[in-house]
């Protein structure tokens, strides 16, 4: 038990270190930008006095190390600084959008995870059947097809031809949860399809890996049905790799949100990020990137920790 806690603590420390380095890279990214942030906010024809004042106000006259620590401290308190393009507080810009993005990603995950696990188990039960083939082709397709293709096919089919769902998901804070969910169905569906096949295949692989084990043979010999062999005997032992795959897929999903949000004009962080890149609004890009990197690193960290925690060999060391 002690070794496993040590391993988890080590991995968590590594995760925190990674986050620090990532934040440093993001900070340096803005530092490397040619020109001056204060000048950029005020525009070309600002008087030198005004620029100097703003520089002092923003703390630009301090040494870089000091500013990095200040910035990091600000971020930890939810203060991301100001937008270069509009001068607005980034936290007020990004705050509601983070909730929207997490809602979309969570919605997609709520559809994708149970569906992928269920279909993955089915594919393992009916190995080498037509169903299994279809799953394989689907997995190949989903890694080959660009996200925007999928999104537009969904729009064409479910929105234009059948008219069931709106093609644009404009969300505002005063919508009821049901209305919000209804307008988010198409982007969530697009995200779901993007990660579904991969999760499904990995679930199937995790289960089939175990099928050659003696205890599975034992279960078969005592007369358990094929379905029960898989669900009752193989599945519990396949949980560790499956949890890992789910966490990694969720990490991909949160990043995959960027393209999907742009297509469906969904007011999330991804859309803000792309708009800001086009405007070269570096501080906003910095904050959005930080959000995505943070989620990505955290989910990867959780995946690794769960993989350690559910590994029986580490739980019961000899």
């Amino acid at each position, binding site marked *: 038990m002690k070794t496993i806690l040590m391993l988890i603590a080590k991995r968590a420390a590594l995760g925190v270190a990674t986050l620090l380095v*990532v934040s440093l890279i993001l900070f340096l990214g803005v530092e490397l930008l040619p020109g001056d942030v204060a000048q950029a906010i005020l525009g070309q024809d600002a008087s030198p006095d005004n620029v100097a004042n703003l520089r002092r106000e923003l703390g630009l006259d301090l040494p870089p190390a000091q500013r990095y620590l200040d910035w990091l401290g600000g971020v930890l308190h939810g203060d991301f600084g100001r937008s270069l393009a509009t001068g607005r507080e980034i936290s007020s810009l990004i705050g509601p959008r983070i909730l929207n993005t997490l809602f979309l990603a969570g919605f997609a995950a709520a559809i994708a995870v149970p569906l992928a696990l269920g279909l993955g188990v089915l594919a393992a039960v009916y190995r080498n059947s037509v169903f299994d083939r279809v799953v394989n082709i689907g997995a190949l397709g989903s890694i080959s*097809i660009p996200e925007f*293709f999928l999104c537009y*096919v969904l729009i064409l089919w479910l929105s*234009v031809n059948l008219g069931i769902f709106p093609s644009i998901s404009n969300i505002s804070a005063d919508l009821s949860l049901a209305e919000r969910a209804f307008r988010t169905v198409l982007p969530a569906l697009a995200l779901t399809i993007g990660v579904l096949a991969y999760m499904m295949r990995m679930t199937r692989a995790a289960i089939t890996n175990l099928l050659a084990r003696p205890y599975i043979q034992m279960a078969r010999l005592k007369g358990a049905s094929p379905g029960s062999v898989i669900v009752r005997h193989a599945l519990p032992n396949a949980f560790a790799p499956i949890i890992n795959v789910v966490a990694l897929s969720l990490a991909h999903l949160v990043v995959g949100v960027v393209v999907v949000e742009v297509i469906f004009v969904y007011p999330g962080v991804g859309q803000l990020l*792309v708009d800001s890149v086009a405007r070269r*609004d570096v501080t906003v890009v910095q904050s959005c990137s930080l959000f995505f990197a943070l989620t990505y690193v955290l989910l990867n960290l959780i995946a690794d920790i769960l993989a350690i925690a559910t590994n029986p060999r580490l739980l019961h060391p000899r």
Partner: protein
Amino acid sequence: MAIHMTGRNGGIGGAGALTAVLAAGLVLAAFAAAALASGKTAGLAVGAAAALHLVLLARALLRPSATPSAATAILLATVVYGAGALALHSRFAAFPGSGLVGLAILHVTVLTAARQWRTLRKAPPSAMIGLAVTFAYAMIAALAPLLAPYPEAAIVGSEYEPWGADFVLGTDNLGRDMLSRLIFATRNTISIAAVATALGFAAGAAAGLLAATIGGWIDTAMGRVVDILMAIPQLIFALLILTIVGTSITSLVLVIAVVDATRVFRLVRAVSMNVLALEFVEAARLRGEGLLWIIRREVLPNITAPLIVEFGIRFCFVFLFISSLSFLGLGIQPPTADWGSMVRENAALIVYGDITPLLPAGAIAVLAVAINLAVDWFLHTSSGLKE
């Protein structure tokens, strides 16, 4: 085997190879002449490329290990291609450089196919389709200006014209011919993706090989840097860098190469570690062979198969990535045609139930599936041979 070898050295094979090289030389000379007619610099460039191609072809065909069937296949391909160029001589004369690149791709494909014929013959239909489609895309990319009915960025009609006789696939949001832009986009996206993949692959593979072979703190340091780069999601990393340095094709290629190199580094390091643990490497080290010798003669030949597979997968990933960035308006900039930006520019048509904007996206998907099919088969055969 010995009998076979003498057969290869026989007079018939040599004469066939000579004929094939001469035929290729004739077609190449025609391209060079056409290029010279349109301008001195163009003529020199095409002439130099043609000479280089001829030398490489002659080396491949005239060396003792070359098979007569390769020479015959090359001769046949050259004659068919030359006849096509003669029939469409007005278009080929206008774009001799494209004609040359097309011939080069054809020759490389035919030569590889002839050499690997035994393996290729047993390939399943899915792999055959994958290889054929990939080859077709490469040819379309090479011959884009010859095939496209209209120039890349010319406004030739009114906006959003429907499919018809003048414009086979209609026109886009500015009145440019959709089919022509699709064809040019094939060339632009594929060539940029190929350059980015090659750069990233070379850098990643070199770093991975060095890290694995040298080991020690250099290996650890490189591993840490790569770990940190990989902790940032690729799309986010690319967007951040493109914001800082601005969007241009050079920065796009470099950013993708860096992002890609990290993945290649991991794989190459892992597979070469496996080889480096074997006895023959130990023997080479004890013999006192240098670092580069060990990498080139002991490690590289043993990791070719996973490297080829990785290259295919990376290439797929890169052009999907470029398309995504272009779709977001941050990749290849207009008026250069590109699959991703074409979807974006014409997305408005979707709302009217018109599938035209899906064509470029479909072009991406078909190429990605084709490459994946070919790679899957290659992975299967190469692992099968080892077992």
